[in-house]
């Protein structure tokens, strides 16, 4: 695993001279598969004892050519590809993609659908942040919080299952809204969750936030300044932890986010502790947004009137000529789509998740590009861990919440 190199191999590197222990530098492969990396990430580290002198990432181990596949699929079949980007919060990807198409076809979305989407997206954000934060706990040696928070994440997945039948790769919703109303079981599960979760979450928070060991371990681990983060095109919680209050939900509101009252937490150091705290506060804000959306939920249909994209009820397909035609056209992917190009972004679990779509009027996109926040900010990883210890590198990786699916597309 590690290959010892002599100092003469690195004579050109000036920063090595004073710091080395007995003049030897080792090369260490962190990953590609290692329990500490939570995914397929390879980092080739040059280490002097515990200290990292240089790091090089290798990415692309699970590249699945989604952008190419999307160029041959009908629009409504691309949603399943977006599931597999950031698979910790698939519904945000699904809904972000649907909103891109709705923007392109100029579809007016009923207020009720927008509120329902907000509930789903905020649940997905909670699930995403719970994974990240509880895993930070695991990497610092606190397994207990993880087991409790994963039970809560299961409850969120139960709710997704109520809505769409799937848990992880959800393919949730349709272009135009939802395929059916939320069931009463969903609402009762959601109410139970909103009642039970805050107390358990506070317990989890107590376990770590002011814990001396946790603080010593995470403060100043993998820091990045606001200026550097912006130059690296960071977005999402990692950028906010560095102190920049950029949130797509506020900057370019979509799906009626302007109707809700919530704050954007920011950190100051951009280190692991700040990233943890920003995500903790975002979970609380998400809970508040869900509560507001439930209380203000308007009446109306659960989908927009877009017969070109929204499957008609099955009974009508059997009895009604027009419905049969629409059904056939949607299933065969023969829906007319206007020519145009559109960029739409949503605040994903990890930051600005963008969809850049160019349509030539054909049955598939001419070009569909995903702005994957992980791919963009993972570039900064070597800079953030240079000079730190190997255990800090593991913590930094998990606190950046790099998701292999989103990284490699």
């Amino acid at each position, binding site marked *: 695993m590690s290959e010892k190199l002599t100092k003469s191999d690195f004579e050109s590197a000036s920063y090595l001279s004073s710091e080395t222990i007995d003049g030897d530098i080792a090369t260490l492969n962190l990953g590609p598969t290692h329990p500490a990396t939570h995914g397929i990430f390879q980092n080739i580290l040059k280490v002097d004892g515990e200290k990292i002198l240089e790091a090089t990432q290798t990415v*692309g181990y699970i*590249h699945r050519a989604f*952008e190419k596949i999307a160029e041959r699929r009908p629009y409504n079949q691309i949603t399943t590809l977006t599931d597999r980007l950031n698979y910790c919060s698939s519904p945000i990807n699904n809904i972000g993609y649907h909103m891109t198409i709705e923007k392109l076809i100029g579809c007016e979305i009923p207020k009720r659908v927008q509120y329902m989407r907000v509930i789903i997206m905020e649940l997905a954000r909670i699930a995403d942040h719970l994974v990240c934060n509880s895993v930070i706990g695991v990497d610092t040696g606190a397994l207990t919080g993880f087991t409790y928070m994963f039970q809560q994440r299961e409850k969120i997945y139960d709710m997704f299952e109520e809505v769409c039948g799937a848990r992880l790769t959800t393919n949730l919703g349709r272009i135009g809204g939802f395929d059916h109303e939320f069931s009463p079981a969903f609402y009762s599960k959601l109410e139970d969750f909103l009642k039970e979760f805050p107390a358990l979450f506070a317990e989890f928070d107590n376990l770590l936030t002011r814990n001396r060991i946790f603080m010593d371990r995470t403060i100043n681990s993998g820091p990045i300044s606001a200026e550097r983060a912006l130059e690296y095109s960071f977005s999402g919680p990692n950028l906010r932890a560095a102190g*920049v209050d950029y949130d797509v939900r506020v900057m370019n509101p979509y799906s009626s986010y302007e109707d809700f009252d919530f704050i954007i937490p920011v950190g100051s150091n951009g280190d692991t502790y700040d990233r943890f705290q920003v995500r903790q506060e975002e979970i609380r804000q998400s809970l508040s947004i869900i509560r507001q959306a439930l209380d203000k939920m308007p009446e109306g249909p659960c989908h927009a009137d877009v017969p070109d994209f929204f499957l008609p009820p099955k009974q009508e397909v059997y009895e009604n000529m027009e419905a049969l035609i629409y059904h056939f056209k949607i299933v*065969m992917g023969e829906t007319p789509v206007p020519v145009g190009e559109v960029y739409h972004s949503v605040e994903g679990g990890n930051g600005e998740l963008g969809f850049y779509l160019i349509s030539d009027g054909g049955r598939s996109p001419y070009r569909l590009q995903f702005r994957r926040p992980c791919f963009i900010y993972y570039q900064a990883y070597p800079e953030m861990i240079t000079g730190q210890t190997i255990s800090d590198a593991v913590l930094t990786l998990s606190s950046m919440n790099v998701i292999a699916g989103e990284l490699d597309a």
Partner: protein
Amino acid sequence: MANSTLSNETVYSKLKEKFGEAISESQEPFDLLTVEVSLAEIHNVIEWLKNEPSLQINYLTLIGGIHYPENTGRELGVTYHLHSLIHNFRIRLKTFLSIENPTIPTITDLYIGANWMERETFDFYGVIFSGHTNLTRILNEDSMDYFPMRKEFRLEDGTREDKDDRFFGR
């Protein structure tokens, strides 16, 4: 952009005034100012947008490639999405290059984050970013000798005879 403090007209007229002929075409699909910039000036335009005090368009959102096989002499395109977080203003820049000589200056000297985005564009479209310090493949394997996102590479095997897709517009 709905809540931006800059308007598309202001930015476009400033660009036109500064760079003149290099700015050839502008559109506003879905309120997003889209301008086509000549290959020679693309680096200067991005640098000016970043440093001009009245604009401060200094956040790089996305770099991507695109391939139009029918446009002879300008087959490959590179698009830049830039964002001013201060003015909440977004702009899309496009530039086109020929497939025989797909060379374009890198902007890694302006934005460090452009590094992997340019490598990805090189990896899939074969656009060569001159001045990039490490222009190697990133997501595909290193030994690959073609650029898979170009349109001549069909997703499905073109020699298949057991499927007749003529009636479905494929």
